[in-house]
């Protein structure tokens, strides 16, 4: 349990923390305590308790401390030893207490009593809920086989359900962070370098001299360590080139803002490759030593001149040349940021690969200021039996399609749940952990159609988000501040382990996912997969394997371990890449083998019809998707989203700033009402909004019907033929003012 301490001690610890050093920089500048002031009156008689945690408000998982003052939750601050946060949380993490205090939280298990989707539930005991689920699981297993249950997961506690499902016999485990997020990026980098980028990204922004952002809206995309390093690089004079149809925060910090016509980035990237090869701006030695297919690449892009790209992208040829030279000037400390949410237009693997090729030409992979070689702690696995073989998986529903998808497609499982005559594998049961599929998967009607075909839908959540409304059983999890979870082993420059311990007792009748999965395993006869007596014992076992213990971890929160390799390639070192050729593949032999373009080519995408504008979306720094919009502290910072409209467009439609409009897309899908932000910061052929608003669930009282949900307008999806990513930016909207 977290220790109590007198406040002087606490001050000392905090003070020591503030002096902590950081890898590779001197972020923390000295602060001399002032003289002549007495200890403050305000805190003198307080008792302060602090507990180690890592944050669950997004998936960067920063480690920090949760403070309690006089028995009241007080604040959450970063742990200075943590390379993901460097002692400083982002606004969402700082506001994490709001997840705990939210009065709208789920409070007790619920079982559906009427038609699915009607949201009529009865309160149940945990036993009743588990019995109900276990009976259905047994029935599904007998009738259709265990593989017909799938898990959708996004978040720490999903791991226990992963174990449960694997033990039960299903390998159909999908996360929206693949086919709706960074799947194309991982595949593009695996194809090129033999390794993915992973999360937290292995980008060495801190030491970059030139940063190229294709969309990536760092600063609004508030992935903590990345924002810190970006800002430090900017302060140190790095030149930033931002390609974005919108004047993002990052664009405002840039030397060059390229307001590209949306959906045309591949053309720009090819033109850059062209110039860099043509003007010999690339890292010759590196290309020579490590890459495969340079001549094929050169040949392939020979026609992709800046003049060719200009009418496509609207970026002037001399700007394309100038920016290419800027990149060349800083070789190899130039990084084309790989992006993260990259499922845009359906040719995303190819677009991201064009960036990867540029990185290879500039020699930035494995180099200072480019991509470092990450290290990760290796924990001993808590002993458990081997999982049974699973005979069918989601792939069988898509014969011959998406050959390079290395993970299950959330959208794919969803589609394959809708029974069709030609498919023999349709899913009968879903577990949904920590992902709000209704807002997360495009084409929400389809998601609902799939749900209506299910025999069992179990949702494990902390809030009554939209997906819970469709559930048969809702299992209320306690928040991350009230539970233990698995050891955090994020890849970084140095390996670390971090602890999440409960800072507060679980409120209401909520429980950790680890306990739920273990209890369910007992009813399914699978308890040998959850052999630990207590979760403390399970954690201690793993911590001991890297030379620490739960006891020590409670005191320090984060432990840094030794790395077994340097973070950059050594000069002249031979290196075997995990690609078929063992080289960085500028020309992808794998893509060639599967009949895809081995070198990216530009494909044109449909443009908005007259009176319509391309719908773009992104992040606000103080919110994580839809999971924080009901958080009292964070909703206080921003409680609804706005649609960004260029003044010319606003004029044409007679829209004025802050007026409410309804958006309607090319298929007649309508949004909730949303305020107009008239701004020069966006092109005239697109509009923009922050994702995660416009909740339709009235049980989330603070966020209900506040702003609009982009997902409701994403009825058209462009599938990536290589790996099945769902391109979501091919939708066009127009304004409806009369209906507001």
């Amino acid at each position, binding site marked *: 349990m977290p220790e109590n301490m007198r406040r002087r001690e606490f001050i000392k610890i905090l003070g020591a923390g503030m002096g902590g050093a950081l890898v590779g920089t001197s972020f923390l500048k000295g602060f001399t305590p*002032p003289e002549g002031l007495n200890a403050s009156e305000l805190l003198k008689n307080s008792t302060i308790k602090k507990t180690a945690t890592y944050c669950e408000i997004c998936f960067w998982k920063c480690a920090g401390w949760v403070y309690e003052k006089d028995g009241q939750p007080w604040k959450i601050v970063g742990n200075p030893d943590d390379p993901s946060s460097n002692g400083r949380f982002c606004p969402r993490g700082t506001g994490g207490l709001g997840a705990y205090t939210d009065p709208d939280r789920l409070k007790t298990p619920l079982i559906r009593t009427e038609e699915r989707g009607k949201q009529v539930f009865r309160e149940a005991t945990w036993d009743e809920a588990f019995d109900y689920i276990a009976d259905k699981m047994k029935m599904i297993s007998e009738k259709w086989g265990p593989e017909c249950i799938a898990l959708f997961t996004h978040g720490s506690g999903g791991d226990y359900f992963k174990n449960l499902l694997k033990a039960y016999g299903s390998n159909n485990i999908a996360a929206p962070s693949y086919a709706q997020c960074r799947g194309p990026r991982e595949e593009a980098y695996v194809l090129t370098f033999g390794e993915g980028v992973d999360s937290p990204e292995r980008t060495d922004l801190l030491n970059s001299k030139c940063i190229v952002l294709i969309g990536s809206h760092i600063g609004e995309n508030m992935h903590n360590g990345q924002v810190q390093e970006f*800002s*430090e690089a900017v302060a140190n004079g790095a030149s930033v080139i931002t390609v974005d149809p919108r004047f993002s925060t990052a664009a405002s*910090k840039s030397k060059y803002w390229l307001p590209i016509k949306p959906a045309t980035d591949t053309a720009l990237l090819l033109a850059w490759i062209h110039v860099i090869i043509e003007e010999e701006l690339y890292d010759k030695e590196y290309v020579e030593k490590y890459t495969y297919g340079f001549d094929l690449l050169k040949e392939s892009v020979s026609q992709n001149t800046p003049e060719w790209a200009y009418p496509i992208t609207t970026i002037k040829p001399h700007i394309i040349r100038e920016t290419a030279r800027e990149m060349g000037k800083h070789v190899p400390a130039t990084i084309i940021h790989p992006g993260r949410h990259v499922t845009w237009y359906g040719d995303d693997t190819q677009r991201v690969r064009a960036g990867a090729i540029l990185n290879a030409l500039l020699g930035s992979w494995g180099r200072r200021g480019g991509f470092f070689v990450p290290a990760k702690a290796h924990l001993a696995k808590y002993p458990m039996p081997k999982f049974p073989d699973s005979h069918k998986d989601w792939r069988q529903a898509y014969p011959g399609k998406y050959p390079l998808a290395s993970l299950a497609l959330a959208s794919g499982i969803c589609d394959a749940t809708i029974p069709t005559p030609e498919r023999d594998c349709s899913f009968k049961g879903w577990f949904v952990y920590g992902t709000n599929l209704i807002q997360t998967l495009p084409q929400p009607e389809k998601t609902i159609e799939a749900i209506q075909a299910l025999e069992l839908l179990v949702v494990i959540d902390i809030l009554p988000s939209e997906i819970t409304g469709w559930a048969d059983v809702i299992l209320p999890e306690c928040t991350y501040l009230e539970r233990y979870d698995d050891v955090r082993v994020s890849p970084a420059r140095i390996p670390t382990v971090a602890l999440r311990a409960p800072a507060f007792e679980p409120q209401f009748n909520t429980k950790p996912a680890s306990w739920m999965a273990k209890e369910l395993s007992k009813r399914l006869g699978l308890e040998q997969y959850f052999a630990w007596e207590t979760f403390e014992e399970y954690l201690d076992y793993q911590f001991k394997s890297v030379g620490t213990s739960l006891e020590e971890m409670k005191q320090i929160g984060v432990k840094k371990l030794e790395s077994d390799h340097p973070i950059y390639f050594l000069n002249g070192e031979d290196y075997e890449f995990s690609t078929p050729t063992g080289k960085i593949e500028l020309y992808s032999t794998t893509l060639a083998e599967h009949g895809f373009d081995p070198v990216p080519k530009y494909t044109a995408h449909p443009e908005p019809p007259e009176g319509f504008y391309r719908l773009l979306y992104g992040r606000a720094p103080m919110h994580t998707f839809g999971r924080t919009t009901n958080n009292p502290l964070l909703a206080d910072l921003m409680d609804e989203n706005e649609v960004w409209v260029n003044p010319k467009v606003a004029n044409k439609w007679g829209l004025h700033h802050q007026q409410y409009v309804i958006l309607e897309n090319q298929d007649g899908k309508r949004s909730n009402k949303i305020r107009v932000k008239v701004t020069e910061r966006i092109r005239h052929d697109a509009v923009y909004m922050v994702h995660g608003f416009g909740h339709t669930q009235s049980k989330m009282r603070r966020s209900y019907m506040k702003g609009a949900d982009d997902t409701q307008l994403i009825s058209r999806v462009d599938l990536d033929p290589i790996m099945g990513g769902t391109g979501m930016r091919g939708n066009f909207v127009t304004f409806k003012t009369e209906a507001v």
Partner: protein
Amino acid sequence: MRYAMAIDTRRCVGCSDCVVACQTENKVPVGYCRDWIVEEMSGKYPLLSLEIRSERCNHCADAPCVRSCPTSASHYEDGGIVMVTHEECIGCKACIASCPYDARFVHPEGYVDKCTFCLHRVKDGLKPACVSVCPTHAMIFGDLDDANSEISKILQSRTHKSLIPEAGTKPHVFYLL
């Protein structure tokens, strides 16, 4: 001793962490804020520039809020920090009307509240809460009377401005440009 704050508009990304951190550290009730974020965009597409500022009480050296207070509740502390003594404040709001920065508000408990430069932390040698959380290290706090302090040095070496100096209040929050 003269405390001041400098905020680097080049680093700041307008994330609002300073706002939430202040709310939790100082138990500022939901719906109220001691600091806030302003984005000032100039230009016409595509030639745009953006200045992002984290704003709060400027701890003015010639503070009209202190002058207009009929009870001395608003006063200067050591180091020039402008404070409100809750038990002396009658809630007449003269100080609110007198602050050109609109930095003050009526706390639901009746007294007037605003940024304290986290005096309680500063007294213990800590940085203000907002400064210590800022993920981009955009904020610098310290003593202007100490020529070797980080803030003195940075104000020496970087161009900076304060907000509406023409209001004559001698603000002590500076924006590095």
